[in-house]
């Protein structure tokens, strides 16, 4: 049994392309993008702005149809669990629900009884450090705090696959580091399959088992870097020479793409 589940990746995206066309304009966001993610793998995607990272996550979540290509996701053993839960780049925390209601939303939609739902939501709110704001509405929170609500909402709904779109992008450096530690700790506990989009190479190397580098416009896969840093990891790993080498190698490869992306923007 162990053997068969190894053979099938948790996610297999084959030859995905995505073209947005509103009226006359056509934007090719993704071209022939293929990716496999193993069960329990923490996969990071890095790429220049506008290369289709968010579009790819939306396609994985079934929120956006791909123009061509196929997505196969192996369902888990518990049919009650959602397949994917997304942390949106734009937070997407409901302004009309309190922090508690937001975090418990996925569970509520799944029909988890209220008492249980509240307990689970509460514990996740504590873990992201928002206990004081449990009954606050989002307009009372800062951008970073809203994103922590988004993260807690995704974690609380306990999905097969966690999709995170630049979840720490809006945070200050200190909170960011704290939450990176927290994410590492949570992941070591559960070993969930994670697809994690970030702009920060350090973050990708710190968190990921592999880092996928995407090209600019249209997004394709440029290179994959396995991160052989030992698990369980913590922030200490960032002080090692190996960490520095890995980040530098990835940056070398990424630099060309970023320059290309900036030139493309300049032309239009």
């Amino acid at each position, binding site marked *: 049994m162990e053997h068969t589940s190894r053979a099938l990746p948790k996610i297999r995206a084959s030859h995905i392309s995505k073209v947005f066309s509103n009226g006359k304009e056509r934007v090719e966001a993704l071209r022939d993008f293929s990716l496999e993610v193993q069960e329990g793998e923490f996969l990071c995607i890095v790429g220049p702005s506008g290369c289709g990272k968010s579009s790819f996550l939306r396609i994985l979540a079934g929120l956006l149809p791909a123009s061509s290509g196929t997505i196969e996701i192996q369902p888990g053993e518990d049919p009650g669990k959602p397949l994917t839960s997304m942390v949106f780049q734009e937070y997407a925390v409901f302004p009309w629900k309190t922090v508690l209601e937001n975090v418990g939303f996925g569970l509520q939609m799944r029909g988890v009884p209220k008492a249980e739902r509240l307990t689970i939501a509460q514990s996740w709110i504590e873990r992201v450090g928002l206990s004081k704001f449990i009954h606050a509405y989002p307009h009372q929170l800062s951008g970073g705090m809203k994103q922590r609500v988004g993260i807690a909402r995704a974690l609380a*709904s306990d999905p097969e696959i966690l999709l995170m779109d630049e979840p720490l992008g809006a945070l200050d450096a200190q909170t960011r580091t704290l939450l990176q530690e927290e994410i590492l700790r949570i992941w070591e506990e559960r070993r969930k399959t994670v697809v994690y989009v970030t702009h920060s190479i350090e973050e990708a190397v710190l968190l990921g088992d592999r880092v996928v580098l995407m090209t600019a416009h249209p997004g394709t896969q440029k290179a994959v870097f396995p991160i052989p840093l030992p698990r369980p990891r913590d922030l200490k790993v960032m002080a090692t020479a190996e960490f520095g080498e890995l980040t530098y190698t990835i940056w070398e490869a990424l630099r060309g793409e970023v320059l290309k992306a900036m030139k493309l923007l300049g032309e239009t």
Partner: protein
Amino acid sequence: MNGKGNPKLLSLLTLLFALWNGCLTLFHGWTAFWWLGLGVDFLLIVGIAELIGKRIPPLYAPLYRRSLSVSFPLLLFLAWELLVRGGVLSPDWFPPPSRIVQALWELITKFDEFSKTSLLGRPWLLLGAAWGNRPETVKELLAESHLYATLMRVFVGFFLGATPGILLGMVMGVSPTIRTMIDATLSAFYVLPKIAIFPIMMLIFPDPFGEGPKIAVVAISVFFLVTINTMVGVRDIEPVYLEAGRNYGASGFRLFYHVILPGALPVVFAGLRIALGTALIVIIAVEFVRAKTGVGFLTFYYWEILSPEKMYAGLVVVMVLGVLLTAGLKKVEQWVMPWRKP
């Protein structure tokens, strides 16, 4: 230049103000130059208020602002009163505020024997009847009240128009097909001045002079405004909220209840606010034309018998009504949407 407001300048301006008004009065300049006099007065008052504002400690700033916004209309009334008494403005067109207040008091306290009506339905009797549990008397008293007649038309019409308006707007917002089908037609009706359909309503209803056509015009005006606003509210919800809703397992009715409805509410309420104002405009206009009760009728009636101060009293009642209704809706809004920034 220091930002603290120069006390010397302040005294100078105050002196100028006194001199200017004194001279105009002394040389009987008001009759010919009243508009110039008021204009200069206004500028001087703005200057004085500005200078005082700079010297007010921040703690009292809100109080200062509130007293500014209250005292300006009072000053306006004072100027009005003085201009009429001084013979500059004709009391036939602009009865002085003191007489308007008097007329209002008369309207509130007196029962009109001729038309068998009163403005408020004689509240002192009303309270007694309600206290003494005499529903028949209460009914009679309410029936003679102009304010009650107008309020009922507004409320019933508003409710009858807003309810289907919200429903249709939601359906149109959710379904692009229905939206495309109905949108153009709706927009055409939207630009039609609703008062224009009043004759048709009078034709349709068996009793053309009864309440039916009046309420129907209000309801129809409200309906179009609310429908369009609700549709826009639903259509313009940030797509990412819908995505989040769907991603976390909401669909169908639950997506509607948890995401679409609350997401559209702010715009829906904006529509309700506009619709309420419009309802008031429409009902007053209808009452001008064809009614035997209502605040609009009352105002028009006093035009017919040439009693300008009572006309103005009618306007005051309409204004107060508008302010109170809007404030009430605001309260409902805060209650329904506690999550909005205050």
